[in-house]
């Protein structure tokens, strides 16, 4: 667990960067991991195809919230194209901790909301099919 809960992860969890509301946000996207209850709303202020500012609000496990916080620091000032090009592997490597299969969704929720906002989505393609009661294992 010391591998996973490193100081900087816990620091981002307890003191999330770019946290809160973003007045004047141009793109906002909200998503959840129903299985664990992680929740993130990502707000971007896009100007001249650049991420001029970013804020997020969320609740959930340390991994989901720290990952989102780290990502907001990275995308600020980047072009929309650069943000759209960020892939899963990059986010997982950037986290710098071993992520088990069960926690991958936690680690990637931040990226999903960033992408959703960057592409100007209101709903993730395909997720509408699974709306309602989410599946889960007992």
């Amino acid at each position: 667990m010391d591998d996973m809960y490193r100081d900087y992860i816990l620091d981002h969890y307890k003191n999330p960067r770019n946290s809160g509301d973003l007045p004047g946000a141009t793109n906002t996207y909200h998503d959840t991991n129903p299985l664990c209850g992680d929740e993130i709303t990502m707000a971007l202020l896009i100007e001249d195809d650049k991420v001029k500012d970013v804020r997020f609000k969320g609740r959930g496990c340390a991994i989901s919230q720290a990952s989102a916080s780290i990502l907001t620091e990275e995308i600020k000032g980047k072009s929309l194209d650069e943000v759209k090009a960020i892939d899963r592997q990059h986010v997982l490597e950037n986290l710098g901790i071993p992520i088990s299969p069960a926690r991958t969704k936690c680690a990637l929720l931040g990226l999903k909301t960033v992408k959703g906002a960057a592409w100007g989505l209101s709903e993730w393609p395909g997720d509408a099919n699974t709306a309602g009661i989410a599946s889960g294992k007992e």
Partner: protein
Amino acid sequence: MAVSVRAAATPLDVGRIRADFPILSRKVHGKPVAYLDNAATSQKPRQVIDAMSRVFEDHNANIHRGVYEFSETTTAEFEGAREKVARFLNAASAREIVFVRNATEGVNLVAYSWGRDNIKAGDRIVSTVLEHHSNFVPWQQLAKDVGAEIVMIDIDDDGRLRRDQFTAALKGGRVKFVAITYTSNGLGVVLPAKELVAEAKAAGATVLVDAAQAVPHQKVDVRDLGADFLVFSGHKMLAPPGSGAVWAPEATFERMRPFLYGGDMIMKVSVEKTTWNELPWKFEAGTSSYVDAIGLGAAVDYLEAVGMDKIHEHELFLTGYVLPRLEDVPGVTIYGPKTLDDRVGVVSFNVEGVHPHDVAQIFDREGVCVRAGHHCNQLLMAKLDVPATTRASFYLYNTTEECDRLIGAIQAAKKVFGV
């Protein structure tokens, strides 16, 4: 009904029981495993593993088919397992026991076979926020398809079912069906199932009891309970996954159409028409998970030899041990009843400042296996207004030492998170 006991000691020889479970001597991350996720699934004793291995190593053959020794022996063991389950539940006959893969499949069997022929537009289906998704979603979807209405019964602050709401819902009329759990998998609350069944039946409703968390942990007597249907899974009661059963009186099963069609469930097939096999095989299409069913029979033997009342008492003893110790940890919130009345050994809690998934992850490093999440209880989580909880659940092989390690693991999680 749960026995109200305040056991000062366990009635079980837990050391002897543990020796029957090979997996319990495993180490995880260098520490002896403390398996406290029994509401999700149970571990298997050597007796069950051996009963299943014996089939494969000694006489495996498809059941109900061959006229040679292997098939006859396997069929006899398979049908013998059915007899054991019938006796275990005090069913009137083995024809009342239909083997299914799990409780979920059992609920779906009833929803598709009985529900679609009997629940009509405008009918009401009563259910509770304590239901596992398996005893809610099938009814929700059926209601949508036929135009029926779902009426949900809430819980009070202790996690007990709101009897006043239940009574009011039945008095409201048009209640065709009641789908209730015997025991909450999220909070460990045991419902007054017999009273609820009697009340529902007096109002003219048909009742299904989800006993997935009850049959493994206390004596369940289907004739005493008086419901129309009861379902449970084998894997939560020392048997393998893939085993489970639906119980219903013969007359009820006789009036129902089959659920799945195919081999073994038929009597005579022609191009024009097919007639169905006798009970219970009318509901068992295709090759059954017969080795799993034989494993379930061995699990029933094991549980009966230990004694269901003693198992229940042991779990309450552990719950009584762990509850005050949990309450003493600053920042811990316990969900569900804090007393031992009408409950089983399921304890749901949260640690302030640490998400349940992080709690469970840190527990893992301590060798402590618990469940974190919504436990297929999203309705209950919404009611509790939490996204998830951490849940420890006990069985006959757990010890007070493991409870101490649970408390120690909470301290470890709090230390990591500085809370």
